[in-house]
């Protein structure tokens, strides 16, 4: 095993059980300047930062995925195992390992620590969260632990930056021994490690008062079979209100900024292809992505808050039984919930699902949750075709139809999950084993770093792909140029494609205008409204005005069966390009996004057809 391949730079790595406060320690050691990427071939995040060492110099610090054991039981743990063994292609073997322990849970965390120490790397142990251990009534002796383990043990409180300088110094000291040969230790079996962990923990605990931990008391309420779900749904209600209410002013402001850029370009660039490219292609495309940023940031704020506080695991616990009914587990609940705002953060949130097949299934059904971009489409069609009658006191028919569309999405997702679990993502029924971590007060800085990383990943990845895609769409819609007197839509490549599509879509009641609108709606679903408006040659840039005018046009032009079929179509499809882009990124290839788009289009076609022909048969 080569200790120093000159082609790879030198790294140190943080390892530890999940819930050891490892990420907070990583933030404290490296600050906000972190690089997030995916490990090649797996959807596990590689988090790296720079650690300044006392006495000058620095080293790249890796935050390896939290692991209970080097005998990997999940893709995350497999990455950790490979990196510390120096078997991960393209990653240097770490010169120094920093094992992070939860001071209040030594008996458990020392098992993994011994497994890591047996590798013989220069190692430093961070005895983290000593403040919480004190809260639990434990007084610890780091020196005794250091003696038992044979490596330096530094007490730390990552969230208050306690012991960080000492830890950096210990890492520097360990690094100076990095070129010596590995001191492989005697390998123990897992039960032996557990036994010796028990002894070491006992030796390191000076005193232990029998103070009760707060968790059991809180959980008695939050996990109560009756009260727990009520609290969960109250929290979710607040989150959804916030996602829609708080995001609107920011989204409007962003739209305003994009609008003023568009105005600026229109004023300064002479009319022609370049100007059209900049305004209709670049700015319209980038704008349609950026407006989702506020919703994503707000949603992730709450998700990170629930994760950091320890509540997320409780939410998963409460929802597990329900999710088990369709072959998933409680861990799929939050990603699916997020998908009601937008499938992009939802699919990104599936990273917390350790079982790969569970995760894939969740990604594949996430687009069936009615995202906020479908709302404008639903709103327009419902306003045009469903009379504002009330079916019961306080229950309007329009609201009922909207609710039914949401339910149709959920039911569809559940059925698809069941089918997928029995076919393409077939496997042993996914279990649900997870630690319910202790409750903690989240720290603002860790939340801010997490939010910044999510926002950046969204803007950079989805942004680049949708950028290219919208430009491609613009080209399709703009060329070849129309002869005078012809409409641009008709003469464009997209127009010809729509004519071709109409042949396929006519049997399910779609007219040519709908076929045309479905093409740009691939970029973002709500574009369907403005695209319909354009095809009906309603010449206004104001979206509200456009929506109103198009409502009247389609009310006059479409039959009710066509409108209902159009709604049914949008329950399942079309896929927006950002969702496809994120799915490609999260599944590392084109296979699953292609499968997803395929099955959704088939479902959309079949259900739009059933809706159309049923409506026609009923004489609607």
């Amino acid at each position: 095993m080569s200790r120093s391949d000159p082609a790879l730079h030198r790294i140190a790595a943080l390892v530890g059980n999940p819930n050891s406060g490892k990420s907070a320690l990583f933030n404290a050691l490296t600050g906000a300047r972190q690089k997030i990427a995916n490990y090649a071939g797996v959807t596990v995040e590689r988090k790296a930062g720079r650690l300044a060492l006392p006495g000058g110099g620095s080293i790249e610090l890796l935050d390896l995925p939290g692991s209970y054991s080097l005998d990997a039981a999940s893709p995350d743990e497999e990455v950790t195992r490979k990196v510390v063994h120096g078997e991960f292609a393209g990653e240097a073997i770490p010169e120094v390992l920093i094992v992070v322990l939860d001071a209040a849970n030594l008996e458990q965390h020392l098992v993994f620590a011994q497994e890591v120490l047996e590798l013989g790397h220069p190692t430093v142990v961070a005895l983290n969260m000593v403040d919480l251990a004190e809260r639990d009534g434990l007084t610890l002796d780091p020196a005794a632990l250091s003696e038992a383990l044979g490596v330096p043990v530094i007490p730390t409180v990552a969230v208050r930056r306690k012991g960080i300088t000492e830890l950096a110094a210990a890492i520097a000291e360990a690094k100076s021994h990095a070129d010596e040969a590995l001191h492989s230790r005697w390998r123990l079996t897992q039960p032996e490690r557990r036994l010796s962990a028990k002894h070491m923990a006992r030796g390191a605990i000076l005193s232990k008062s029998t103070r009760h931990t707060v968790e059991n008391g809180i959980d008695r309420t939050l996990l109560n079979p009756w009260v727990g779900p009520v609290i969960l749904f109250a929290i979710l209600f607040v989150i959804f209100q916030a996602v829609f209410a708080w995001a609107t002013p920011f989204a409007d402001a962003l739209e305003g900024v994009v609008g003023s850029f568009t105005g600026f370009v229109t004023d300064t660039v002479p009319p022609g292809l370049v100007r059209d490219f900049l305004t209709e292609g670049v700015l319209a495309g980038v704008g349609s992505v950026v407006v989702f940023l506020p919703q994503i940031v707000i949603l992730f704020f709450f998700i990170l808050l629930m994760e950091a506080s320890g509540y997320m695991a409780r939410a998963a616990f409460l929802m597990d039984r329900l999710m088990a009914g369709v072959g998933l587990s409680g861990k799929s609940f939050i990603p699916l919930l997020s998908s009601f705002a937008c499938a992009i953060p939802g699919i990104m949130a599936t990273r917390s699902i350790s079982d790969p097949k569970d995760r894939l299934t969740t990604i594949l059904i996430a687009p069936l949750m009615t995202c906020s971009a479908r709302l404008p489409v639903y709103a327009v069609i419902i306003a045009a075709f469903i009379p504002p009658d009330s079916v019961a006191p306080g229950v309007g028919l329009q609201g009922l139809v909207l609710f039914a569309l949401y339910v149709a999405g959920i039911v569809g997702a559940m059925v698809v999950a069941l089918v997928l679990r029995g076919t393409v993502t077939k496997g042993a029924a996914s279990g649900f084993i997870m630690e319910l971590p202790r409750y903690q007060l989240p720290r603002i800085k860790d939340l801010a770093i997490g939010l910044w990383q999510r926002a950046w990943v969204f803007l950079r990845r989805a942004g680049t792909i949708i950028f290219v895609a919208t430009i491609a769409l613009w080209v399709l819609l703009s060329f070849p140029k129309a002869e005078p007197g012809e409409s641009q839509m008709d003469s464009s490549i997209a127009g010809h494609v729509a004519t071709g599509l109409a042949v396929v879509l006519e049997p399910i009641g779609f007219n040519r205008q709908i076929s045309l609108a479905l093409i740009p709606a691939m970029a973002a679903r709500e574009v369907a409204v403005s695209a319909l408006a354009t095809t009906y040659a309603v010449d206004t840039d104001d979206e509200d005005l456009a929506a109103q005018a198009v409502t009247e046009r389609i009310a006059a032009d479409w039959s009710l069966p066509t409108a209902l079929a159009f709604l049914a179509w949008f329950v399942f499809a079309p896929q927006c390009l950002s969702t496809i882009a994120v799915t490609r990124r999260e599944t590392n290839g084109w296979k699953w996004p292609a499968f997803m788009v395929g099955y959704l289009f088939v479902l959309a076609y079949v259900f739009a057809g059933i809706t159309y022909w049923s409506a026609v048969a009923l004489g609607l």
Partner: protein
Amino acid sequence: MMTLDTLAGGTDARITGVDWKLLAGDEAKRLRALGVDEGAQIAILHRGIFGTRDPLAIRIGQMTIALRRSHAQAITVETI
């Protein structure tokens, strides 16, 4: 002999055996890594919603872990 899923809530018990064959490979690994093994002390803290009372939240060592009843059925315990 009783299995963990039939243990009354809040009663301290000791694991007398785990039928690893009943568990999927990764689940067995994960449970073992969390300290579920012969001799470990265990207690049921909370049970899930609906008729099946699934999943279970159990205390093992200093930790609270959630698992399903199907896992608990593979774990035999004796009260202490």
